[in-house]
Structure formats: C-alpha cells, structure tokens
C-alpha cells in the first residue's frame, strides 16, 4: 500500500527542496569562513566536500531502497524493532527542529542587522513565522511547489553578482595551493555546512513520484548547491583581497554595497529582503519534517496540531530569549557537528548494518 501517495512530489520539486535546504542562511558567511581556513584555495575544499556529500547522499538513497514505501523510521522499525524506530524519530525531530531554529535565528539576526535595526527581534521573528505556518501546514506537495517557485524567481541573482567583477583581481586566485593541501583539507569540514540537509531524503524518499530517478535527482541537487557556492565563493575571492575578506561577517552582502546604480541606492538592502525567501527554504521544510517525525511517533496522520504547538512555542520563546550573534555562531558550530554525525556517519553505518543483516539473514523476523 502506498502510505504517502496523496502527497507525492516530482523529481524537480525534490531537487529544489533538497538544494534549498542546503543553501540556506549559512550561504552568506561561507566565503569568509573558507578564506579563514584555506585562503583563496577554499574553493577546492568546496569541491572535495561536494564529492564526499555525493557519496553520502547516494548511501542515503541506497539505504532507502531497502524499504521504498516508508520513511527511515518505518525502515528502522522493520529491521531493528519498533522502539529503535521511535528513538530514531525523536533524534531526527530534534535535529530538524534545531536546524530550523538555527536558521530562523540567523535570519532574524541578519534582518535586524541589515534591514530593521530598531525593530525588536520578536517582531521580526513573528513576521517570519506567519508565512512559515501558512506554507508548512499544507504538506509536502505545497512545500515542493514553494521551493520551485523560490528557485525560479531567484534565477536573476547570479547576474547581479557579475557586476562587481569589473573590479576583480583574478591574480588573487593564483598560485593554486598556496600553502599546499593541508589548509584545503582542514577547510573541508567547514564546507559540510553548505551541504548538510540532504538527510531529509530519509523522510522525503517515500513521497518521491519517480523513485528510479532518486539517485540522479540527488546528484543534480548536490551539484546545484555546489555550483551556487562555488560561484559566490570565487566572486568574493577575486573581489576582495585574501586578508580583507576575513574582516567581513557576510562578505556576500558587503560585495553588493559596491554596486551603484543611479536609480537605486543601497542595493544590498533589497537583496537581504529578497534573500529571506531563499533562506526560508532552510526552516520551512525542516519544521514541516520535524513535526512529521513527531506525528509519526504518535501515529497520527495530521501534522497540523503539532505544527501549531511548535509554532506557538517558538513565537513565545522569542519574547523571552533570542540568541546573540556569538551564541548563534556557537549554535552553528554545534549544528555542523551533529550534522556530520547524522548525515555523513549514520547513513554509512546503517547501510553496512543492513547489508550484513540481509546477507547473513540474521534477523528473520519478517
């Protein structure tokens, strides 16, 4: 029986959804972070990180092929017992909530810093949460369409980033491997920041309309993310000097301050406002999938009540506490640590376990 048939998503929607979660808020700081670790060779680390990510995401797909009609939790429940499935669901829900919350907080802080310095953080948070609820309550198909829409209307952005290129110093990029391979490899874990989020495939997989194409879809999606990051990183590297780029918190935004049109001042402000649409892909799908996990846990079909509760908690908590920039940085660091665990290590272990189990038929529970 197709349990999730009423909410199928196309490959296209899946690609944009996955890539949207990956790009997210961390996009703005990435070139600076890479430059800190590896100088202008940071872009090589991005490609290495991409290769590892592709491997990890293909493993995820392989795992899901063992039980194509259910989510990860159905699969774990089948192989390891009901309780293991529940534990996995709890962990996943916590991870996704944390992912969404970090993204939201970062977006709020950015909006406050660049757009609305005098408006309170809780107001900004509420303004972001209202559309979040409107979209997330509708289920996956609407989410997929939303991701598609956001991607389509953002296609013009790369062209604007070509403007600063007239002041570019391409000489910054050579020589390649200035300090050898070591700094490049040390920057690879940082790049995972730009790729985490693909583990949502564990939940998205059963909804896929065309499961044969899942591998190529995730490959396209990872590549899309990589190209986006590579593009923006290279532009920042050739525009800023290697030392200077580390002075900015969000070089991707600062670079826009150099653009000057006679008819509009302060381009970057318009951009931050527009970027919020792209950033929203970091928390809307993850919030949705988080409540999906908790609903699964309690065996309910309708996720909306959980969503409402979560929404209220988030909205109310911002009145009492909103992290500072430094706390947010630490939250990000923590996110990437558990992200590596959940998205890179866990699928590999799971695949090996499943393979061993199938091979020797240890557990003949079925």
């Amino acid at each position, binding site marked *: 029986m197709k349990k999730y048939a009423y909410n199928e998503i196309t490959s296209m929607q899946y690609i944009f959804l996955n890539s949207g979660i990956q790009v997210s808020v961390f996009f703005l700081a990435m070139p600076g972070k890479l430059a800190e670790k590896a100088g202008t060779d940071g872009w090589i680390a991005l490609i290495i990180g991409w290769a590892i990510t592709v491997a990890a995401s293909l493993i995820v797909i392989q795992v899901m092929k063992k039980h194509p009609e259910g989510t990860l939790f159905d699969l774990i429940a089948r192989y390891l017992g009901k309780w293991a499935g529940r534990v996995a669901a709890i962990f996943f829900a916590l991870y996704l909530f944390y992912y969404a919350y970090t993204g939201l907080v970062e977006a709020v802080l950015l909006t406050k*810093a*660049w*757009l*609305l*310095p*005098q*408006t*309170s953080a809780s*107001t900004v948070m*509420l*303004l972001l949460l*209202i559309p979040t609820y409107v979209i997330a309550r509708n289920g996956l198909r609407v989410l997929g369409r939303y991701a598609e829409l956001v991607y389509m209307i953002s296609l013009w952005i790369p062209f604007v980033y070509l403007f600063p290129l007239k*002041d570019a*110093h391409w*000489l*910054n990029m*050579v*020589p390649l491997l*200035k300090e050898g391979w070591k700094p490049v490899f040390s920057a690879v874990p940082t790049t995972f920041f730009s790729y985490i989020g693909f583990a949502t495939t564990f939940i998205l997989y059963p909804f896929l309309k065309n499961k044969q194409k899942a591998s190529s879809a995730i490959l396209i999606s990872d590549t899309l993310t990589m190209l986006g990051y590579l593009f923006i990183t290279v532009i920042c590297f050739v525009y*800023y*000097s290697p*030392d*200077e780029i580390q*002075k900015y918190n969000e070089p991707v*935004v*600062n670079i826009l*301050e*150099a653009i*000057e049109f006679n008819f509009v*001042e*302060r381009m*970057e402000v318009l951009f931050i406002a527009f970027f919020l649409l792209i950033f929203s892909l970091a928390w809307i799908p993850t919030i949705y999938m988080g409540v999906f996990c908790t609903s699964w846990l309690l065996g309910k079909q309708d996720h909306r009540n959980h969503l409402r509760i979560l929404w209220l908690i988030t909205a109310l908590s911002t009145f009492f506490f909103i992290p500072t920039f430094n706390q947010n940085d630490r939250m990000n660091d923590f996110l990437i640590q558990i992200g590596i665990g959940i998205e890179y290590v866990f699928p590999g272990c799971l695949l090996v376990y499943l393979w061993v189990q199938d091979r020797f038929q240890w557990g003949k529970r079925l």
Partner: protein
Amino acid sequence: MNKRLLHAILIATVIVIIASCSDRLDMEDATHALLVGFDLDKENELILYSTSPVFSKNVEKKTRELRVKPQTNRQSRGKQDSYTEGVFQGRSIQVLLLSKRILQQENWFQLTDVWFRDPKNPLTPRIIAFDGPLSEIIYLNPKDQPMLPILLREMVETKNARSETVKTTLQGLHQQIREKGVTPIISEVRLKDKQIAITGTTLLDHKGKYADSLNMQETILLRILQKNTKKSVNLTIPIPGEMKIGPFHTDKVSLNADEIKVKIKTSFLKDKFQFHMHITMRVGLSELLFPFDVRSQGKELENKITEQVQMNFENLIKKIQTDKIDPIGLGLYAQAHEYSHFKKVEDHWGETLANADIHVSVKTIIGAMGTVK
C-alpha cells in the same frame, strides 16, 4: 463562527505588528549629508565638516555647511544634530574629503569604521584628498557652480572615465589598504585661484599616510600600468630637438592612445624581484605643434615618441620606488608568481619593491595621423 474568530485574531495581530515596525524615518526629519570632510586643526584636534542640501523655499542658499569638533566620526552625528532641524543621516554621503593634514597621519582610516560596521551607511562615497585646510573649499560656494558634493562627484566620475584621476570609493580604499601587495591611490583636488580643480591623484602608503601626488598625465601612465584604462587616453609629450618658438610650446605632440597592451613578467633573481613590463600602444596623432612630414618620416617620429613615453614611464616608476609604495599593484603579480618569496616580505612590500628591478619597454605604433598631413 470559529473560522471568523480566527481571522479576526489574525488581522488584529498583523495590525499590531505592522504598527510596531519602528524603522521609519520621515523625510522632513532627516538631514542628508552629501559630503563629509575630515581635517585637523592647529592643535591636531579632529574637525568634521559636512555639507547637506537644504529643501526650503525661503532659504536663499541651497546648502548648509556644518563644522563640528567630535572625538570620533560617529560622535559627530550628535553634535551635528544640535545644529540642524532634522536628524543627521549618513546614508547618502557622496564624497569624503580628506585634508592633507589628516593624510599626514597614520591610521586615520580607523575613523571610517562606523561606515563599515553600521550597515545603514553606504560604502560608495568617493574619496578625495584636498591639498590644504578644508575650510577653504567647504565655504567657497561659488555662485556659478553646482553644490560642492555634486561638483566633486561629477568631476571624479568624468575624469575617471578619461583615466585622468581614479575613482576610489570607501570600499575600494578599504580593499587597497588591507591588500598587502598594493598601496592606495585616491583623487586629488586643489584650489587654483579660488577655482576648484581636479589635479590628478594622491598616493598613500600602506598605512594610509600621504606619500606623493601625481598630476593628470602621470595618473594616466599609472593607470596604463595598472591595466585599468578606460576608453582611449590622451598624452602630450615633448619631442627633443624641436624648436620652441615664441611663448608657445611648439615642441609638443599630443597622442590619443587606444589598444594599450601591457604584459608584466615577474621573476625572482639574485634576491631581488624582477619585473619586465612590455607596453604596446597604438596611438593616433591628435595634435602636432611643429612641422613634420608624418607620411614619409613616420618611423622616425614613432621612435621619438617611443623614447619619450618610455622615459615618462621610467620617471614614474622611479618616483614610486623612492616613495616606497606600490600603487601599480606589482605585489599582486609577485604573490601570484613568486608566492613563497612574496610571503616573506609582504609586510614591508613597499621597501622591497624599492629595491626591485623594474624594466619598462614601450612600443608605440602610429596608427593614424589625423586628417592633415
């Protein structure tokens, strides 16, 4: 019924939220400074000037100049507020004017921190050096010219298009100061007989301190070396051996150079950086003040021009090397091609470049002689 209630709550929330958006500023409550100037008085205390437009029918003068003595750039805002009817705004600054006394200090650039830290401020004001105390130019207000910020902005804009000065914005200056392999270069303005004139560029050292000035022709040459010329450039050079008759400089020839190709080769030999620059220019004659048969003796004129242009380049490089600065950005080439050697000297690149061997070879081709022989 239930749904209605929900909608009512939703609408009420939205109204409350929108009303509490506190980031708005009414036009009449704002004073927009278009120009900000830094100067030091005789006791070396910071003076900050600003020029803002006045929008009022009954006021005869179109601009308002303010002079305050703050301790920091941001603090000046409060002080200026006390003189104006609106709140001082930095978001439309077009020009940042620096007096020579400021430029003689190290680390004056730190004053600009607020513009980088507070994202409400633009990073596009043009940086202009003024040779003298700012009070001379700020209060000049000539009746036959647009207001000073607009005048300066347009001057930089158009002269930059002809490569006669540079357009260095705040962001550009930040980049030039932070980059180790290059030193900053900004536009220069002087007062000549009470007339405001752009005279070329001011060269700064690594710390932003005044190093030297270049006139317009030298600026053009510098920009050729930077591979940063826009459109075609004009050069006027003397040809030795030609007679000067009367009060007129009849030994001069004016060129219009386009298709300028610069090749820079970098190497490291005998503990010294070596730069070989090959400049190929296709020039058109635009003025010839002495009789010369260009058609038959074109080759000869070409050689003479080449020799002169080459000499000009060599003088410029000598000047730069004596000042221990690198406005050309040769450090970028050194970094790209001799990374390990550059890394050792990057913190005192200016001095290193002063000892480097820089060779220039010029090749000019007369591509057009104009419409007369």
